């Protein structure tokens, strides 16, 4: 027999109305505008775009506003919105070597062509709270300096010239580029699908896993060959035009992690690599992604799989925070019938347990007499 229980309609409606009120907060405080969120909470927006897997600043800002700043809720909203739109196609691969660079640092080469460009970084700040910001002080314009117009080759190209590093990461000629938004998740994954999952994976989860490899759980001796942030052009092939049409530019962060050398009977010792590519200015995420990418190549590189970060199924199955929050948070939804059954079971077991104790006690008493 199945008995449906209904109720809570009015409670739900009123809860949502209350949520709308609390989201807006004190009406005497001016409401946030989308452009304010886009401009002044830019890195939060970047995270929502990266993990929501949708590049659209205004939409991400709207999601942050609607979710009261709960970024995982915002990411959820963006993911849900995505499903309402048709797909026009796959872009041509972006060329990060042609990036309009806003930041670029290397931990491996001091004097690389193009130099070390710090850009708008939190690095080297003292992490002291600045109470003056609350008073909206005037902010001076940035300093400018003449550019030398040097092409900024990727660091991997420099090492590649000497043959000391493995190639960029080719897949077999007949390999069709995977798309985890269109195909069910299957293990083992090809590296392209894995990178797609990592690129939209939860920053905190990937950060912790990357950290775990540094602490010895799947050690890979990483160096940041290069981190670069900036804008790249996006092009799409469309049937109605005889050339790939430029859609505009997006800001991305790329991390080239260079890891301990590895050789085999066939290949001479050389550096191996992990790769990170993320929407927006998301340096921590791109670095964590590249650490995880390298750790997950353990099998391919003939290393023992001993640590969580090297376990593909574990990492990829748990990296998506929309899935994770859905399953964890569903626990608070009504489980009345499930729980009733469990309650019955525990009561029955308790009864049997007490009966057994009674019998034991009687047996002991009889034995003593």
């Amino acid at each position, binding site marked *: 027999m199945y008995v449906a229980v209904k109720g809570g309609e009015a409670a739900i409606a009123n809860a949502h109305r209350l949520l709308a009120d609390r989201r807006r907060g004190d009406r005497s405080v001016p409401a946030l505008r989308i452009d304010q969120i886009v401009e002044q909470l830019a890195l939060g927006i970047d995270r929502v775009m990266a993990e929501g897997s949708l590049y659209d600043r205004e939409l991400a800002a709207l999601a942050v506003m609607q979710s009261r700043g709960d970024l995982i809720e915002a990411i959820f909203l963006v993911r849900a919105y995505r499903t309402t739109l048709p797909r*026009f196609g796959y*872009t041509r691969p972006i060329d*990060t070597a042609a990036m309009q660079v806003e930041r670029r640092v290397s931990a491996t080469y001091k004097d690389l062509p193009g130099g070390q460009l710090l850009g708008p970084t939190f690095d080297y700040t003292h992490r002291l709270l600045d109470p003056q910001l609350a008073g909206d002080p005037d902010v001076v314009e940035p300093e*400018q300096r003449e*550019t030398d117009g040097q092409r900024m080759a*990727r660091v991997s190209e420099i090492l590649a010239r000497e043959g000391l590093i493995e190639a*960029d990461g080719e897949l077999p000629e007949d390999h069709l580029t995977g798309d985890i938004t269109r195909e069910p998740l299957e293990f083992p994954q090809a590296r*392209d699908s894995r990178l797609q999952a990592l690129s939209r994976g939860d920053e905190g989860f990937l950060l912790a896993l990357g950290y775990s490899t540094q602490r010895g759980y799947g050690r890979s001796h990483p160096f940041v060959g290069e981190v670069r942030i900036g804008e790249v052009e996006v092009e*799409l092939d469309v049937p109605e035009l005889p050339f790939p049409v430029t859609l505009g530019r997006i800001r991305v962060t790329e991390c080239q992690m260079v890891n301990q050398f590895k050789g085999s009977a066939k290949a001479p010792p050389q550096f191996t690599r992990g*790769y990170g590519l993320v929407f927006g200015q998301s340096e921590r995420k791109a670095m964590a992604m590249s650490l995880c990418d390298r750790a997950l190549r353990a099998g391919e590189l003939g290393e023992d799989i001993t640590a969580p970060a090297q376990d593909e199924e574990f990492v990829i199955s748990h990296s998506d925070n929309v899935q994770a929050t859905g399953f964890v948070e569903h626990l608070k939804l009504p489980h009345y019938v499930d729980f009733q059954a469990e309650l019955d079971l525990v009561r029955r077991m308790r009864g049997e347990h007490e009966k057994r104790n009674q019998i034991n006690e009687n047996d002991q008493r009889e034995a003593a007499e």
Partner: protein
Amino acid sequence: MKMDRRQERETEAQRKVAMAALAMAPGDELKRLCAAAGVSNDAELLRGPETGLVSVRGRIGGGGAPFNFGEATVTRATVRLPSGEIGHSYALGRDKEKAKLSAITDALWQNPERRAEIEDKIIAPLRAAQAEADATSRAETAATKVDFFTMVRGED
């Protein structure tokens, strides 16, 4: 014949550049320039303006095999002018008015008699503004370039 094909390719390259300038233009700026150039909104919409997604690809290691790393919103439109030219537009984002205006501008651009005027009044200012913004951004980044120097310690 050979000459024609070369010329055709050149025109295609120019059109690609013009369409890129339209795609990257801020919507308000494009509307202002179109109004100033007297671009009429009068065109038959053959498709859209409609918003959809593209899956954005990168390459493993920067130059290796392609992989999808996220999606982006794109809005496109196709129009036909009363004079018969068909224009297209594609741009990141969800600005439908910009998509329509861009498609109209692309259609006008294809009319050899209007091309110079469209280039002068719309494409050139857009490209100049973009180039200036890029130059400023590059100069600001350049000011954060690290100049290393060596400190000599001790007598010898």
